[in-house]
């Protein structure tokens, strides 16, 4: 593609003239300053040529024949779902949770929920029952949308104890809905395919995304309808989506990337999005890119590293010349992966950085800008980023290049989270003055490119997903043999980090292989494979502070042979 047809041909110039008011004007809006994410994704296209365009190209797991769903058909399907919510007495503002594999009606459910003014929360289907239940208890949804299999395996045992859930809607093909559930397809078939999408205040909640912290339960980051301004803008100018492009975001819609860039941004930009029902399969992926002529591909470092591991023969056996722009997010993309992309696929991967709280891409490499392998790029137009060091009274910004500091963002961008559900203080503590503290450490080179350095807390990032050590430790502590548990991330060639647990046993228990397997089994059953530890080591005791907190930082330093740093708060008994 020629630079002239890139949506953002000159980064500096674009930033200088950009305003969020201008980005607002690229949306249709619903009058009087009101809007709705679903309106921008679907309704606005009705009556235009986009209506007959394919919105979802669904790749069924067991078939090579894609199923195309047009914008019009998706809009009608979403309208049916909105009508189902209305008919069931679900009120705007109430929450609807989605727990499903990637099937078209999940997308209809998300958009129907937004049409009706309800708040949607995605849940990752590889979660075990415990993370699902925790998130349900915190967010108290009125409706859970799921599949028969996931319901039976992960929800049925405890759902009766969660009074907030009034309806469990099953969206897969069913012969008969189990007791306590309803068959969404039948309800949708009986509902009207017309629904007047509700005009929302820009500050009305739209999405609740959960993320993990170092301590305590997961945090529910609340996003509002105005976030769509950011989704649309970054889809167009950062991911370089052009109307009619074939676009593939490989992230699961159970996470924020799969929602912001796997549903919203592609639809507001009128592209055709590939939705693959299957899990990672290198040959299948290359075949999809080739056969579907994917132009814009947004994927993640773990997947890229798996592709690299499989060697250059597979990609060379496929025609991947349709690829115009490739981007990556989830964790820092190693420089070799960028170079591999260039060498083997003919294009570099453009790394970008954002997090659940930011709602959309904040820092990125751009189509028209030189990619610096290993760098997350430069802030998007309209976002002011800086590095800060903490002081006794607050923070001070770092101006000199190549100094490490905490990455901070000036508040005010449209997709910024507006709160942590039920945790006002935690939300307040995320800001100092006008600056949002991201918890990520970074440095900035003399040319303004940002480089990720690490987290300033104990959160683990595995396959791009944040895992809170506390959640894992809590489950291990449920086992009668476990006295103490400390959980850290250890480097992994493919996943970036994997979860490792250290366990000290109560007197009378034997640290052996049988017990290790029992603990692994318990953790996997409760947490699911994405969150459970891959390794468990036994220790006589774990290093603790004098106040009794497990020093995960020290566990990690000892495990990896790193300097132990400040150990002045270490309780003497746990020194080794």
């Amino acid at each position, binding site marked *: 593609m020629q630079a002239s047809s890139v949506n953002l041909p000159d980064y500096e110039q674009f930033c200088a003239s950009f305003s969020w008011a201008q980005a607002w004007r690229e949306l249709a809006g619903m009058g009087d300053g009101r809007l709705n994410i679903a309106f921008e994704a679907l309704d606005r296209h009705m009556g235009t040529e986009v209506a007959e365009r394919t919105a979802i190209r669904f790749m069924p797991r067991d078939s090579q024949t894609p199923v195309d769903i047009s914008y019009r058909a998706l809009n009608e399907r979403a309208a049916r779902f909105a009508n189902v919510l209305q008919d069931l007495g679900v009120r705007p503002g109430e929450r609807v949770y989605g727990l499903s594999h990637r099937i078209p009606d999940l997308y209809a459910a998300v958009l129907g929920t937004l049409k009706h003014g309800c708040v949607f929360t995605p849940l990752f289907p*590889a979660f*075990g029952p415990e993370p699902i239940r925790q998130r349900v208890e915190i967010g108290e949804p009125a409706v859970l949308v799921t599949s028969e*299999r996931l319901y039976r*395996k992960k929800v049925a045992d405890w759902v009766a104890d969660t009074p907030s859930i009034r309806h469990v809607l099953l969206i897969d093909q069913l012969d008969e809905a189990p007791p306590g559930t309803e068959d969404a397809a039948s309800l949708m078939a009986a509902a009207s395919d017309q629904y007047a999408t509700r005009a929302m205040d820009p500050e009305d909640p739209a999405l609740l995304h959960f993320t993990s912290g170092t301590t305590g339960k997961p945090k529910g980051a609340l996003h509002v309808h105005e976030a769509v301004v950011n989704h649309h803008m970054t889809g167009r100018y950062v991911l370089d989506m052009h109307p009619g492009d074939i676009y593939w975001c490989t992230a699961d819609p159970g996470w924020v990337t799969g929602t912001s860039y796997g549903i919203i941004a592609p639809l507001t930009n009128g592209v055709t999005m590939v939705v693959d029902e*299957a*899990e*990672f*399969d*290198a*040959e*299948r992926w290359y075949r999809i890119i080739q056969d579907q002529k994917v132009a814009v591909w947004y994927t993640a470092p773990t997947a890229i590293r*798996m592709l690299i*591991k*499989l*060697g250059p023969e*597979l990609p060379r056996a496929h025609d991947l010349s349709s690829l115009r722009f490739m981007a990556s997010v989830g964790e820092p993309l190693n420089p070799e992966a960028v170079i591999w992309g260039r060498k083997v696929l003919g294009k570099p991967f453009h790394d970008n950085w954002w997090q659940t709280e930011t709602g959309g891409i904040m820092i990125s490499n751009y189509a028209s800008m030189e990619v610096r392998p290993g760098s997350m790029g430069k802030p998007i137009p309209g976002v002011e980023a800086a590095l800060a060091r903490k002081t006794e009274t607050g923070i001070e910004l770092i101006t000199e290049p190549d100094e490490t500091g905490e990455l901070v963002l000036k508040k005010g961008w449209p997709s910024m989270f507006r709160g942590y559900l039920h945790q006002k203080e935690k939300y307040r503590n995320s800001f100092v003055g006008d600056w949002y503290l991201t918890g990520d450490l970074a440095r900035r080179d003399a040319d303004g490119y940002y480089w990720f350095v690490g987290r300033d807390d104990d959160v683990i990032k595995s*396959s791009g997903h944040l895992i809170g050590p506390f959640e894992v430790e809590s489950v291990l502590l449920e086992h009668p043999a476990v006295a103490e548990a400390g959980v850290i991330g250890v480097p992994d060639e*493919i*996943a970036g980090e*994997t979860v490792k647990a250290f366990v000290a046993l109560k007197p009378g228990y034997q640290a052996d292989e049988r017990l290790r*397997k*029992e603990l*692994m*089994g*318990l953790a*996997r*059953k409760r947490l*699911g*494979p*994405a969150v459970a530890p*891959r390794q468990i080591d036994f220790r006589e005791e774990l290093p603790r502070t004098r106040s009794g907190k497990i020093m995960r930082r020290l566990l990690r330093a000892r495990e990896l042979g790193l300097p132990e740093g400040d150990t002045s708060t270490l309780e003497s008994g746990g020194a080794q």
Partner: protein
Amino acid sequence: MNRDELRKAVLEELSDVAPDIDMATFDDRASLQDEYDLDSMDLLNLAAAVHKRLGVNIPDQDYARMRCVADLLDYLQERV
């Protein structure tokens, strides 16, 4: 090695990778991903364990074909 012996070895390795699976009621035809919640990293670990135990290298591009234990046994039987 006959199929029963092969199955015993594979299930032992599988139970190391995913100790949450109840082997007493294990269904060879059930999907490892859907029914037993194995993710792609589990499948990689299983393939590595099978390689170590039986000496059969499962090329990376074949990982994804391991839908169920019956598939894996078919694959291994031809190669052990």
